[in-house]
Every structure is written in structure tokens, then in C-alpha cells.
């Protein structure tokens, strides 16, 4: 048995919108990036999204999430970007080497520059019965129905009314399930009004100021008990599934292992990797992009990917600083516009889940 050590100029970890855009930016500067993803397909979160995205034409608005993902993958193929699927970056050591596992082997990679675009992971919510089969993350339910084409349940309760909760509830109805209720502890719906209205126009109720008391069942979920926090009354909804959508937190394990500094930001999902405007982390030649640098939207992830790609190429000596500066300015301008909204209290899954307790 021997461990080979391959050397690359640029390794991108994660083939979501951020990682793919970073790679595309890099090839445009004559860099030859290697993209790793543990999934069997590229596209990241986009793969599971069957709804049409907001944004402008620049980010594929009006198209469905999976279509935007497929287009990005196609573009990468056109430009002959090497994407290794089923390849988990299992560790990122302080000396800068990356341990990769694919179904056949385990090997070490050495890269001069590394862009981490591993996205985010769902936050949990614990209550009696949350370990019963049938209680699952909203992302898990999405993978099951939209990727593998299996119905998660016939009648489902959704916990959380952020955009993810609203969108996944709607997608469950599209797949053929019904929604018993959407449970929200806050006194207002967290997600966008138009996402809320899609459910409202189907007659689906969002229970505000309500909380989960417990899930009931023997070998799997049979019912959920929900408390109206204003009256103290508890109701039992018969369901065969409970989906949790109480926010996402950045998947920071690899940057942490590498030694990148983190910073705590409630609005962006908790612990995020500290980075400058150009996506450089506190470690030289390590960059972040997308949800791992703060949970936002796909359009923002794409722009951040481009920025990280430019920064890596500048540091590798592939682009002149002046040229990079002009490109960056355009991107930063677009990011500012996209974020113009974030000062307002809409569409936030993140804050709501932090303010409430994650346990009951």
C-alpha cells in the first residue's frame, strides 16, 4: 500500500454554485483547477431545488435551481474543468495537504491554493421523539423526493417558516404529500411573502407562536403534539413525517482543521470563516466562498466564488493586480445590490433559530 501525493495549483472543495463559479473564474485566467465533491453529482444545494429562483438574469433568475446547477456543470465541462465526484475531502491539514477519499482509494493532495466552498449544514431542533424514524431534516426530505424520487411521507408537519421550510413544504405538496401544518415559534412568518403565499393559496396553515411539544410513535412517527404558546393549549396532528427547517450553519470543519480563524455572526448562521472582501481567510492561500463564509443565497454564493477565484489567481501570479481590481469592482457592486435587502427583516431563517432555543 502506498500513498501517492498529487500536486495541483488550485483545489476547490465543493461543487456547489460557489465552487463551480470559482473554478470557472480560475480557468478563465489560464489556471487548471481541480474540483472535489463528495456527492455523486455536481451542483450542491441547487440539485435539489425544483423551484424557480429569484435574482436577476445574471444569476439565472426565473430558472429552476437544478437547471442553474446543470448549466454551471455544463459550462465547467466545456472549459474542461476537472471535477472529481464521490470524492470527500476528509481532512485539510495545517501543512496544506488535503486527504481525499473516493470509493476506490484514499490519497493526499497538495495544492498551492485552496478554495473551500463546502456550503452549510442544517441546524437541529431537539424535542421528545425527535429521534423517531420519520423525523428528518428538510434537506433530507428534499434529497429523498427530488433526487431519489421517493415520497418522504403522506402527511407531514414542517417545523420552521423560513424560506427553506416554506419552499420544502411546497415541494412536498408537489411531490404528492400533504402538509398538516407549518410550525413557527415566532409571531411572524420568517420567509419571503411570495413563498408564504404559495402555501396560503393552497389553504395550508402556518401556526405562529406555536412550538413542538413532542413527536409520538412506536417504530416511526405517528403524530406531533403542538402547543399554542398564547393559550397553552396542545393539539395533536396525525402525521407520518416531521421535517425540521430551523436554519443552516456553515460547514466550517475543514477551514477549522486548517487553522483558519472563525467569527461568530448570528445573521450569517453562527460560526463563519473570517475572510476579507476578496474571500481570503486568515491562512495564506486559503479562500472561502458561498454558504461556508455565511449562509446567504445562491446568487451571492456565485459572486463570492468568482471573487475567490480571482484572488487565488492573483496570489498564484496568474493575473495582474490592476486587471483583477476592475473585475472585482464589478462583482462587489453586484453583491452590494443583492445584499441591499439583508438589512431588512425578511427571508431570514438564521436569526430565528438562534433566538429560540434549539431544545424545548
Amino acid at each position, binding site marked *: 500500500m502506498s500513498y501517492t501525493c498529487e500536486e495541483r495549483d488550485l483545489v476547490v472543495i465543493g461543487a456547489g454554485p460557489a465552487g463551480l463559479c470559482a473554478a470557472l473564474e480560475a480557468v478563465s485566467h489560464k489556471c487548471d483547477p481541480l474540483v472535489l465533491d*463528495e*456527492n455523486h453529482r455536481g451542483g450542491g444545494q441547487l440539485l435539489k431545488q*425544483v423551484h424557480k429562483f429569484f435574482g436577476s438574469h445574471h444569476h439565472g433568475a426565473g430558472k*429552476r435551481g437544478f437547471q442553474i446547477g446543470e448549466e454551471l456543470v455544463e459550462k465547467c465541462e466545456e472549459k474542461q474543468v476537472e471535477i472529481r465526484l464521490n470524492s470527500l475531502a476528509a481532512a485539510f491539514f495545517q501543512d496544506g495537504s488535503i486527504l481525499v477519499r473516493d470509493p476506490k482509494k484514499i490519497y493526499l493532495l497538495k495544492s498551492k491554493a485552496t478554495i473551500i466552498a463546502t456550503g452549510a*449544514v*442544517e441546524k437541529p431542533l431537539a424535542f421528545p421523539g425527535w*429521534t*423517531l*424514524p*420519520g*423525523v*428528518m*431534516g428538510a*434537506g*433530507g*426530505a428534499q*434529497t*429523498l*423526493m*427530488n433526487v*431519489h*424520487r*421517493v*415520497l*418522504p411521507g403522506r402527511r407531514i408537519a414542517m417545523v420552521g417558516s423560513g424560506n427553506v421550510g416554506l419552499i420544502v413544504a411546497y415541494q412536498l405538496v*408537489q*411531490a*404528492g404529500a400533504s402538509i398538516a401544518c407549518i410550525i413557527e415559534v415566532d409571531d411572524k412568518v420568517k420567509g419571503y411573502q411570495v413563498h408564504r403565499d404559495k402555501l396560503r393559496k393552497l389553504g395550508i396553515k402556518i401556526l405562529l407562536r406555536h412550538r413542538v411539544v413532542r413527536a409520538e410513535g412506536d*417504530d*416511526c412517527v405517528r403524530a406531533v403534539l403542538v402547543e399554542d404558546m398564547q393559550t397553552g393549549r396542545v393539539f395533536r396532528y396525525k402525521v407520518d413525517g416531521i421535517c425540521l427547517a430551523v436554519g443552516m450553519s456553515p460547514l466550517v470543519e475543514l477551514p477549522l482543521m486548517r487553522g483558519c480563524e472563525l467569527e461568530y455572526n448570528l445573521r450569517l448562521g453562527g460560526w463563519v470563516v473570517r475572510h476579507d472582501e476578496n474571500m481570503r481567510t486568515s491562512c495564506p492561500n486559503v479562500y472561502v466562498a458561498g454558504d461556508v463564509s455565511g449562509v446567504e443565497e445562491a446568487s451571492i454564493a456565485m459572486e463570492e466564488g468568482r471573487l475567490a477565484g480571482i484572488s487565488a489567481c492573483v496570489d498564484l501570479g496568474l493575473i495582474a493586480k490592476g486587471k483583477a481590481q476592475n473585475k472585482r469592482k464589478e462583482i462587489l457592486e453586484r453583491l452590494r445590490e443583492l445584499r441591499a435587502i439583508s438589512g431588512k427583516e425578511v427571508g431570514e431563517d438564521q436569526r430565528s433559530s438562534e433566538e429560540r432555543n434549539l431544545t424545548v
Partner: protein
Amino acid sequence: MYIYEHPILGKINKSPKVTIYINGRPHEGYLGEPVASALWAAGVRAYKLTKRFHEPRGPFCFIGRCTDCEVEIDGIPRVKACVTPVKEGMSIRVPDL
């Protein structure tokens, strides 16, 4: 239950049907899909019993992160069902409840 028709994704487009054995009984699955989705489609909800409380568990994340979907496949214990592709004739053992 498989979603054969989807308003956005259209007809199911999965690779050929194969037979898998769940606790010895034949069920159909699609070649290459994760064992976890084939089991879910077959109505299995409890994939393992936990060590301490011996309570049933089923998939939580479906992307290989939570380890709640471990089953016995062809005699090998504790294999994550959500990241293991289905093969013809596979034999899967789950708790008999």
C-alpha cells in the same frame, strides 16, 4: 412509494429495476439508487436499533452525515444506506419490528 410522475421533474428516470432482499423478502429497487431510498420506498422506516436504548432509527440527513441509516448489507454490519448504491440481489437486514 416512488414518485413516478412529478409536475416539474417529469417521469421517473431511473436505471433498470433490480430485486433486492429485505430481511430475506424480495422487493424491487433501482440499480444505483441509494439503498436508503429503496428501503424507504418499500415502506421500511426503522433501519437500525440503537445501542443504548434499543430504539428504532431511520435516515435523518440522506447525505451520509448523521449515521442514523446504518443497516447490514450482504453480511457487513453498519453500512450507511444513504450512500451505498443498490445492486442486483443485494441482501439487506433491518430490525424486524
